[in-house]
C-alpha cells in the first residue's frame, strides 16, 4: 500500500489540522510505513498522549485504543496501562514541552522503571499549539513569543538526558531523513524495555516564522546541516563540529558522548 492508502486504512480522518509543512505529517507517514513494514496494524498498538500538537496525532487520527491525558501525563498513564495488561503494546506520543518540561519528571523515572513502552517525542523546539512560547529544547538565542530578545536558557539534549539517567534505547531522527526515520521507528517498536525516540521536526509556523525559516524546506535543509549521521559525526574535524548534533540509535551515554566534541 502507498502512504495515501495507509492513511485511508489507519487514520480516522484524511485531512489533519496541522499547519502546511508541519513535520508531524512526515512522522505520521513514517509511522504508518513502519507499522505496515512490520506486518502489523495500527490497532495492534495502544496509545497515550498528553497535550499539544503532537498529542493530536494519535488522539485525533490513529484508529486504535488511545487515552488522551492531561499535559505531560501520558507516560504514567502508559505505565499504568502496560503494567495492568502486559499484552498491550503501549506507545506514547508527545512533544518536547509535554514530555520534557511539564512531564520531565515522569520521563526520567520511566527510564528508571524500564517499563517496556515506546515514547516518541516530537521535538519542534517550541510550544506550537499555545502560540509559540519557549520550550525546554528551544535553542539559545531563538525568538519565541516569550523570549522576544532571544532564548537565554540552555536547552535540553533529550537523547543525552535519557541516556544520562540510564536509558538503554534512545534514538534521534530528523524528519529531513524520512527513510531513516522509518527504520528508526521500526527498531523502536520492536525493541525491549523502555524506548525513547526524539523526532526532530520542523514547525514552520511558530518556530520558523520567528527565526528566519518560514518555509518547511529551508527548515529541513537546516536539519541536514545540523544533524549528522554517526559516520559523518565520527569523521568531521572536531573543530568544525560547532553547534551540530548527531542522529541514530544509542544504547549508552558514553557511545553518544564520544560522537560529540568534548565540552570545554
Amino acid at each position, binding site marked *: 500500500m502507498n502512504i*495515501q492508502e495507509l492513511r485511508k486504512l489507519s487514520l480516522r480522518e484524511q485531512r489533519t489540522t496541522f*499547519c502546511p509543512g*508541519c513535520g508531524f505529517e512526515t512522522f505520521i507517514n513514517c509511522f504508518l510505513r513502519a507499522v505496515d513494514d512490520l506486518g502489523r496494524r495500527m490497532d495492534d498498538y495502544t496509545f497515550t498522549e498528553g497535550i499539544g500538537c503532537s498529542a493530536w496525532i494519535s488522539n485525533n487520527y490513529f484508529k486504535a485504543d488511545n487515552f488522551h*491525558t492531561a499535559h505531560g501525563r501520558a507516560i*504514567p498513564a502508559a505505565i499504568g496501562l502496560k503494567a495492568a495488561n502486559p499484552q*498491550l503494546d503501549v506507545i506514547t506520543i508527545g512533544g518536547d514541552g509535554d514530555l520534557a518540561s511539564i512531564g520531565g519528571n515522569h520521563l526520567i523515572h520511566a527510564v528508571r522503571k524500564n517499563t517496556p513502552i515506546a515514547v516518541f517525542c516530537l521535538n519542534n523546539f517550541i510550544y506550537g499549539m499555545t502560540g509559540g512560547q519557549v520550550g525546554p529544547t528551544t535553542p539559545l538565542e531563538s525568538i519565541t513569543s516569550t523570549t522576544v530578545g532571544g532564548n537565554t536558557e540552555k536547552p535540553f539534549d533529550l537523547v543525552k538526558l535519557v541516556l544520562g539517567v540510564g536509558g538503554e534505547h534512545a534514538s534521534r531522527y530528523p524528519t529531513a531523513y524520512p527513510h531513516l526515520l522509518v527504520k528508526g521507528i521500526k527498531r523502536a517498536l520492536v525493541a525491549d524495555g523502555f524506548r525513547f525516540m526524539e523526532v526532530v521536526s520542523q514547525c514552520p509556523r511558530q518556530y520558523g516564522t520567528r527565526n528566519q525559516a518560514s518555509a518547511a524546506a529551508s527548515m529541513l535543509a537546516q536539519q541536514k546541516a545540523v544533524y549528522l549521521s554517526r559516520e559523518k559525526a565520527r569523521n568531521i574535524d572536531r573543530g568544525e563540529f560547532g553547534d551540530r548534533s548527531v542522529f541514530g540509535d544509542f544504547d549508552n551515554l558514553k557511545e553518544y558522548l564520544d560522537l560529540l566534541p568534548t565540552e570545554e
Partner: protein
Amino acid sequence: MPRRISINHDLCRGCNLCLEMCPKQVFQESSEIGAAGFRLKQVALPDECTACGLCELYCAGAISLEPLPPEEFADIMAQEERRTSTGQRRGGWKEVDSLLEPGRYFMAGNEAIVEAALAAGCEFFAGYPITPANEILEGMSRRMGETGGRFIQAEDEIASVYMILGASWAGLKAFTATSGPGFALMQEGLSLADMAEIPCVIVNVQRAGPSTGQATRPAAMDMREARYGSHGGVQRIVLYPDSVQEVFDMTIEAFNLAERFRTPVILLSDGYLSHLAEKVAVSGCVKVFDRIYVPGRPAFGPTSDSSVPSMPRFGDGENVVATGSTHDVSGKRSTTNPTVQENLVFYLNRKILEHREELVDCEELFLDDAETAVVAFGTVGRSAKWAVKEARKLGRRVGLLRPRIVYPFPSQRIKELCRTVNQFVVPEMSQGQMVHVVSEKVARDVVSLPQPNGQIIDPRRILKYLVEGVW
C-alpha cells in the same frame, strides 16, 4: 517507465515539500490557483520518478504513488470495516468469596483499606509515600505480591493517579492512597477521571494543614476539596467512615460505586482512623460490582436516560478514544460546540444525582424529637455520638446526623429534620467547612464548632457545648 502518481488537490496543503524535496524534480507548480489560495501542484515528469517515496512521506496525504488496483484496496478497506470487537458482554453485580477467612480480625484503619480493596477485586495500586497513609502503600506492596495484582511506587502523586487511570482503562479496578499535599497534586488527574468517566478510588487520609501542617495529626480539612477541588467541578461521590469496621465496609462500597457510576470515588479517612486498631468482622462472601461492557455500544455519555455507558477495556478491539477534552459519545473531541459541552457536564452530574436517594447513607440518633441536631462526619461523628447520648441522659433534646456518604450531600434528609430541629451544630476538625454546606440547605440557626488543632475532638467538649453552650 512512467510512474503512476496522482495528487488529490483537496488534501494538498500548499507546503511545497513535493517540489523542493523530490531529488528528480518530478513535480511542478501550475499557474492555476486552487480554492485554498495557493498554486496547484502537478506531476510534470513521471518518467523521471524512481519511486523513492520521499514525496509521499512528506506530504499531508495528497500524493498517491503507485496505488494498488482499486478492487484490491477496496477489499482491504472492506475487511477493515467488518472487524468487530473481540470482547464479550460482561459486568454487573456478583458475589465472590472473601480473600480473608471469615471471622473477626483486629486491624488498623489503613490495614482495613488494604484488605477491603482486595476483597472488592482491586488488582492495581500505584502510590507515593506520605504520612499518615504509608501503611496502605506498604500493605498493597506486600499483598499485591501475594495475590498476583500489580503494585507501582510512583515518582509522585501526579504519576500515581495517572497510573491508576491507565490501569482502569486496561480493565482493572485500581486505587491510590494519599494525604493532603498529595491529594492536591492528584486533583488534575481526578478531573480527567470525571471527564473521561474512569472508575477509580482515591483514599485521602486527612492530616492537619494547610501545607505540610502536622503530618501525623488528624484533621478533616479536605472535606470541600474532595468535592470541589478539581477544575470543572462536577459531582463527586465522597465517603467518610467513623470506625475500622466502616472503613472496611465502605472501601468495598467505594469500589462498587466507582464501577457502577464510572467515576472517581473519594474515600476519606484521617490521621486518627488510619492508625486506630479495633475489631472488624469479615463475612465469607462479598458483593461486588464490575463495570458493564456491551460490545459495540458508545463508550461515553451523555446517554439519553443519564444511565452509565458501556465501558470497554483497551484491547477489546473497540478503538476507544478516551479524552479529557469535551467529546461526543464516541469520544471524538468537540471543543467548540456549546451544546455538546453543556450537555456533557450536566450529564456528568445527573448520572450520579439521579441516584441521590439511594446514595443517602446516614447514621441517625434521637432525631425524632430533637431540637438540636449535631451534624458530624467520620471520626468527629464518633465523638459526637457519645456526647449526644450523654446529653440525652441529662434530658437535652439533641440528636445526631452522621452522613457516611458525605457527597452527594443528603440535602433532602437534612431539610426534613427542620420539622423539629431549630438548631444545627457542626463540630469539625477544621475551621469549619461542612458547616457552610449545612447552612446552604436549612433556614435554621447553624453553629460551627471548629477545632483545627490536629487533635480529635474530645467528646466531653461537644457535650459541654450541648449542655452549657460553651465551646
